[in-house]
């Protein structure tokens, strides 16, 4: 009875306080805006059907909604509320997009955009003083975390370098050091190649041969198109394939000249998320996602989920904080969060990247997780993956 009365009093007090509060101070409703690209080639029907490992399987809205629901009650108790909106941008006019962001009063953005569109938007934010908290949930380019970085920009999807370091650790731990590296012809393939070479160097792997491949059945191009010829010699432990498109890499396992594993963009692939991982509460999240979408949760979905979860966690920790304080708590690693990967995760202060473990997966299963056992770091073991503080190219911290 006593509990009921105090509950009623609290209820009345809450609404009285709400009525008395000036509107400008009342910042209880937080608008989270997911920005996608109209006619995004990543979501074309054919591309989705091909289901290349590591690629998104659809827009990441449901995953964001799951994270909203998880902490909803906590936030409500402290007078906060999250709202999720979706916006499809044509990818052209950043000023129009900015106007739309302002119109919708969005304080948190989840960028489901390719690299160039993300960069264009962040350049605009570089010129204005008040910017929202921006989560990159869909692009792994190191450039966004490095030379193009922005103090308001947080990245929940692991960078290419993190993925490369994870796999390099895995190979080094097994002493599978000798490799043939096959690189695609796309300009992005070359960027990826340079990143992977840095990891290969860091972990003492040996490139026995490096070759460019083409997607072609043309006998005149067989030296570069035939997987058997590409992988015939010299002797090697693994074939590393770097293919941003994914078609060649997908078909390479079991088509090599020697009976050796394929790693990189095909075969054993480093990923932010895989539904076969059975520990740390991961299956529950994957089930929740599967129930709502009838799909397997992909890395990009996890990145979307963890972005909302990061913001909600920061808000849950300091319900009265303003946007700048929340950003500071996130960016300074003060806020740590549970990403269902077994350890507390946090953002790196030097480039806004979310520290996290990486799964080594091969379609059906997860072979293991990086950082692998035995890898050491003077401060934080997760910082053995990706650009560590001294080597970060980010100037605007």
């Amino acid at each position: 009875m006593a509990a009921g009365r105090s509950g009623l009093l609290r209820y009345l007090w809450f609404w009285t306080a709400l009525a008395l509060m000036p509107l400008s101070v009342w910042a209880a409703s937080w608008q989270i805006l997911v920005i996608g690209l109209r006619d995004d080639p990543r979501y074309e029907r054919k591309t989705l059907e091909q289901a290349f490992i590591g690629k998104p399987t659809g827009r990441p809205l449901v995953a964001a909604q799951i994270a909203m629901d998880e902490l909803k009650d906590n936030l409500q108790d402290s007078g906060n509320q999250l709202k999720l909106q979706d916006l499809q941008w044509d990818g052209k006019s950043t000023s129009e997009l900015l106007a739309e962001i302002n119109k919708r009063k969005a304080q948190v953005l989840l960028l489901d955009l390719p690299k160039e569109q993300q960069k264009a938007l962040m350049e605009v934010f570089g010129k204005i003083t008040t910017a929202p908290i921006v989560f990159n949930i869909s692009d792994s380019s190191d450039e966004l975390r490095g030379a193009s970085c922005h103090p308001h920009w947080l990245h929940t999807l692991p960078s290419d370098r993190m993925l490369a370091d994870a796999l390099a650790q895995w190979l080094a731990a097994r002493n599978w050091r000798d490799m043939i590296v096959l690189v695609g012809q796309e300009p992005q393939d070359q960027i990826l190649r340079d990143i992977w070479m840095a990891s290969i160097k860091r972990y003492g792997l040996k490139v026995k041969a490096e070759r460019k491949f083409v997607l072609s059945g043309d006998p005149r191009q067989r030296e570069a198109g035939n997987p058997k010829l590409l992988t015939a010699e010299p002797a090697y432990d693994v074939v590393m394939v770097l293919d941003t498109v994914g078609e060649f890499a997908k078909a390479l396992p079991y088509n090599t000249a020697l009976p050796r594993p394929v790693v990189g963009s095909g075969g054993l692939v480093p990923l932010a998320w895989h539904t076969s991982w059975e520990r740390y509460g991961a299956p529950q999240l994957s089930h929740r996602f599967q129930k709502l979408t009838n799909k397997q949760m992909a890395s990009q979905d996890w990145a979307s989920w963890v972005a909302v979860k990061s913001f909600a966690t920061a808000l849950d920790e300091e319900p009265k904080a303003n946007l700048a304080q929340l950003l500071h708590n996130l960016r300074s690693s003060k806020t740590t969060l549970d990403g269902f990967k077994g350890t507390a995760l946090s953002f790196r202060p030097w480039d806004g990247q979310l520290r996290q473990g990486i799964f080594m997966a091969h379609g059906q299963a997860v072979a293991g997780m990086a950082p692998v056992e035995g890898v050491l770091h003077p401060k934080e073991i997760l910082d053995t993956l990706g650009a560590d503080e001294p080597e970060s190219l980010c100037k605007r911290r």
Partner: protein
Amino acid sequence: MQNFICFKQLARRAATGLILVAAASFTWADVFVSSEKDNAIMVLQNDGTFIKNIATCKRPRHMAWANAGKQIMVACGDSDQIGIVDIAAGKQVDALPTGESPEIFALSPDAKTAYVSIEEGSQMIAYDIASKKPVFSVKTGAEPEGVLVAADGKLVYVTSEVTNSVHIVDVATRKQVGMVKVGKRPRRFAMTPDGSELWVTNELGSSVSIIDTASRTVKDTLMFELTGMRKNDLSPVGMLITPDGKTAWVALGRANHVAEVDVATHSVRKVILAGKRTWGVGLNGDGSRLYVVNGLSDDLTIVDVASGKAIKTVPAGRVPHSVITN
């Protein structure tokens, strides 16, 4: 046939007993370990000697004694039920159907009601054991886990791993009457015998939150530290407080150690190396031995409490979860 087995077991135990009696105060205790991927409860002698496996429902996890120690109730995550295992019969004899994916449960003092955390549904459901019917349910934060019933049976405590909080449910009104924010990813409970302190392990907080049950606030947080390890390596889950209320045992997860904690001063007395990812903990009847389940090395470490040393480690099936003794 049944008599013969009993006699044989008795003879075997007697033989083991003779060997052990000189070393430690020996009790006729058996050890029961739930093994998630074997769908079985493994039965061991108190020295770790394997006796047999009892087949159970799928993915057995938390266990509790029932029917005056003649039966074990075991939550089966993949069968959506609590299996009733009869020790003498050596098999599961009954089941209490539950919501989807039960993990931890606790019984009312009169043993008539089971309070079960239902992971998939984000709720705590109370079941009447005799009629096998749900009595009431209370919504919790996502992924409820630990459940504890106060000694007087009036309140039930439930952790929510995702919302980092402890829900307090009043049994009489069947409503949540309080919520206490604790550390990151709260997992399991232990309560001091006088009921004044409720301890909660925070897996990602590397800590134990100590709740003052009267004021329903966190009065202290016990942070674990281990030489040569970082905060992230310490992920406490399983925990118990001894019946005399003086000592708490906390499994430190990936730190592969178990901590002996002084309850009065909230300070760690010592840490003992066990196996990989220390998980569930159980104490034998006279408190002389601690059993530590190691989830990643699939084994069970037996610790001699007096000397604070691990005596030995024995296999414990695939993904062992909990341990209880009689």
